[in-house]
C-alpha cells in the first residue's frame, strides 16, 4: 500500500501535474484501490469544512498586508535609516540588508516578499559603493528568509493548522531564533569581510544627528508589528483578528504615504487572490488526501513503518533534517510543508519531540530550502533583480549563510529553550 501510494505520487508529480491535483487524484486512486467504503464521497464535505476555517482566514489577510506594505514605500525609508546606523561595521551596507530584512520580517509573513522588497531597495547600492556582488546578493537571499521565522508568519499558520498547535506560541518561539539567525548572518558577513576586506565596499559615515533623525522611519514598521503581533499578547486579538487589524493598518499607512488608489488596491487584491486561490486549492486537496489516507489505514502504516526503523530520538532528528534538506532542493516550500507535515509531525510527537519546537525546526528547514539550488525561490528573486550575470553568483553568495542556518538547527537541538523559553514565560 505504501509503495503504491509513493509510486503514484512520484509519477503524478514527475509529470508536472499541479501539486493540488496530484494530491487530489492520489486520494481518489487510493480510495478506489483500498477503501471498503466510498470515501471519495466525503470530498464535498471536506472541501467545505477545510476552507471556512477561521485560522486560515489569516492567510489571505497576511498576503494582502504584504501587497499593501510593498506599495507603501515603507521599505526604502526604513533601509536608509538602518544604513546610517550599521554601515560602519566590516561589511557595511550588507549589515543593513540583514537588519532591514529582519525588521521587514516583523511586518511580513512571507520570505519571498521580504527578499523582493528589501532587495529592490538595496541592490542599486552594491554597484555604487563597490561591494563584492556575490556576497551582497547572498545577504539579500538569506536575509529574506527571516520573513517566515520572525513573526508574523504565513508558514507558521499553515504548520499550526496542520498540527493543531497554537499560533501565538509558535510566534513567540520564533522570536529568539529569528534574532539569533539575523545576528548569525551578520557574523558571516563580518567574518568574510575581515578575512577579505575587499568584499566590503566603501563605508558610509553619517553624523549622529542624521542617525537619530532617521529613526523616525522605523516607526511605521514597528507600528505594524505591534498591531499584527503585539495585539495578540495584549489579549486584544486572536492571530486572525490581528491579521485583519494589520490589513486596516496597512491601508491606513498606504493612505498616509499617498500610495493608496483604486488601481493600487485592485492590483493588490488580484495578487492576493492569485496566491490565496493557489494555496487554498492545495489545502483542500491535502485535507482530502489525509482523510483518505487515515481511513484506509495508510497513515498508521506509515507511522509504524518509520517507527519500525528503530531509530533513536536524535537519529530520527537527523533523518528528518536530511530528508527536508534534500527535498527542499527540489520542491516549492508550501507544497513541501503541506505534503509532508501531516505524516511526519505525528511520528515526531510520538517520539517525544515538542511540537512547538519542531515547528521552529521545520521553519528553519524551509528557510534553507528557499536558498538551496536548484529550486530556491529566494535565489531566483534576487537573481532576477540584477538583470545580468549568472545565477551561480547568487547560489555561491548564499552558500555561507546556509551554514548559519545549520548552526541554528544545531543550537535548537542543544538548547530547545531558545525556542521554548519565551512561550513558557509569556503564556
Amino acid at each position, binding site marked *: 500500500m505504501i509503495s503504491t501510494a509513493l509510486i503514484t505520487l512520484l509519477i503524478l*508529480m*514527475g*509529470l*508536472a*501535474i*499541479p*501539486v*493540488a*491535483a496530484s494530491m*487530489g487524484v492520489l486520494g*481518489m486512486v487510493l480510495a478506489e484501490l483500498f477503501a471498503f467504503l466510498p470515501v*471519495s*464521497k466525503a*470530498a*464535498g464535505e471536506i*472541501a*467545505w469544512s477545510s*476552507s*471556512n476555517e*477561521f485560522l*486560515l*482566514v489569516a*492567510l*489571505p*489577510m497576511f498576503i*494582502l498586508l504584504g501587497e499593501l506594505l*510593498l506599495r507603501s*514605500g515603507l521599505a526604502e525609508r526604513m533601509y536608509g535609516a538602518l544604513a546610517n546606523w550599521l554601515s560602519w561595521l566590516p561589511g557595511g551596507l550588507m549589515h543593513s540588508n540583514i537588519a532591514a530584512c529582519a525588521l521587514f520580517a516583523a511586518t511580513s509573513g512571507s520570505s*519571498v*516578499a521580504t527578499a*523582493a522588497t528589501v532587495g*529592490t531597495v538595496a541592490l542599486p547600492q552594491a554597484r555604487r559603493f563597490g561591494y563584492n556582488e556575490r556576497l551582497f546578493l547572498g545577504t539579500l537571499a538569506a536575509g529574506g528568509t527571516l520573513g517566515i521565522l520572525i513573526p508574523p508568519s504565513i508558514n507558521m499558520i499553515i504548520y499550526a493548522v496542520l498540527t493543531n498547535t497554537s499560533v501565538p506560541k509558535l510566534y513567540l518561539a520564533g522570536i529568539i531564533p529569528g534574532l539569533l539567525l539575523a545576528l548569525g548572518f551578520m557574523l558571516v558577513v563580518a567574518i568574510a569581510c575581515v578575512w577579505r576586506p575587499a568584499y566590503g565596499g566603501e563605508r558610509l559615515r553619517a553624523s549622529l544627528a542624521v542617525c537619530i533623525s532617521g529613526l523616525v522611519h522605523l516607526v511605521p514598521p514597528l507600528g505594524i508589528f505591534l498591531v499584527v503581533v503585539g495585539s495578540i499578547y495584549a489579549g486584544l*486579538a486572536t492571530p*486572525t*483578528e490581528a*491579521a*485583519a*487589524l494589520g*490589513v*486596516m493598518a496597512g491601508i491606513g499607512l498606504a493612505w498616509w504615504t499617498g500610495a493608496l488608489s483604486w488601481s493600487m488596491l485592485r492590483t493588490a*487584491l*488580484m*495578487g*492576493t*487572490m*492569485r496566491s*490565496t*486561490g*493557489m494555496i*487554498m*486549492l*492545495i489545502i483542500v*486537496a491535502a485535507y482530502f488526501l489525509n482523510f483518505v489516507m487515515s481511513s484506509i489505514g495508510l497513515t498508521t502504516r506509515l507511522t509504524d513503518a518509520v517507527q519500525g526503523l528503530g531509530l533513536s530520538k536524535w537519529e530520527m532528528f537527523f533523518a528528518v533534517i536530511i530528508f527536508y534538506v534534500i527535498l527542499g532542493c*527540489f520542491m516549492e516550500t508550501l507544497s513541501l510543508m503541506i505534503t509532508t507535515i501531516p505524516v511526519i509531525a505525528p511520528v515526531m510527537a510520538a517520539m517525544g519531540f515538542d511540537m512547538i519546537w519542531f515547528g521552529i525546526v521545520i521553519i528553519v528547514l524551509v528557510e534553507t530550502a528557499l536558498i538551496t539550488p*536548484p*529550486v530556491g*525561490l529566494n535565489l*531566483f*528573486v534576487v537573481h*532576477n533583480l540584477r538583470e545580468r550575470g549568472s545565477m551561480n553568483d547568487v547560489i555561491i553568495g548564499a552558500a555561507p549563510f546556509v551554514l548559519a542556518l545549520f548552526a541554528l538547527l544545531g543550537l535548537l537541538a542543544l538548547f530547545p529553550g531558545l525556542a521554548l523559553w519565551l512561550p513558557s514565560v509569556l503564556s
Partner: protein
Amino acid sequence: MSSPIDSALRVAQRGAEFAALAGGVLILSAAGVVSVDVLLRKFVSVTLGGADELSGYALAIGSTWSFAFVMLSRSNVRIDALYQMMSRRWAAVCDLIALMALLVFASVVAWYGFTVMSYAWEIGSRSNSSLAVPLAVPLTLWWIGYAWFVLCGLVLMLRSVSAMFSRDFDLVNRLIGARSIQEEAADELQTATEILKAKS
C-alpha cells in the same frame, strides 16, 4: 482569428478575473468586519458576534471564486524538475494531462459539493451559532466557484486540445504550460520595480 472557442476563452478569462476581484473584495470586507468587531469588543465591550463565522465563509467563497483565475494565469504550483528537460511536444502532452487531472479533481469536488449544497437547501440547515446563518446561502456561493472553475477548465481544455491538433506547442505552453520559477520570480520583481518607478 476568432473562433467560438477563442471568444469563449476570452469570456472565461474576463469572468475569472472579475470573480477573483470579487473574492478579494470579500476578503477585504471580512478584514473590515473583524477589525470593527475587535475594536468594539475592546473599547465598548460590545460584540457583533459571528464576525469569525462570516469571515470563514468569505475565505471559502473567495478562494473558490479565484480558482479559475489561478488556473488561467497558470499559477498552480507544479514540480517541474523533469518537465524542464522535456521537448516542447512532450511538455505539451504533460500540460494536457495536468489540466485533465486538475479538472477531474475539481469535478469530483464539485459533484459531491453539490450534494452538500442541495442537502442544505432540502433540510434548511442553519449554522450552530448566534447568527444561525442558513447554510444553503454560503454553500451555494461556494459551490458556484467550483462550477465556474470546472466550466473555465473545459473551455481551456478545448482550446488547448485544438492547439495540440494544429501542433502549435507554443500556444499550448502559453495557455497551460508550467510557469518556470524564473517567470515566477520575474513577476515578483516586476511589481517591486514598478512601484519604485511610480514613486520616483
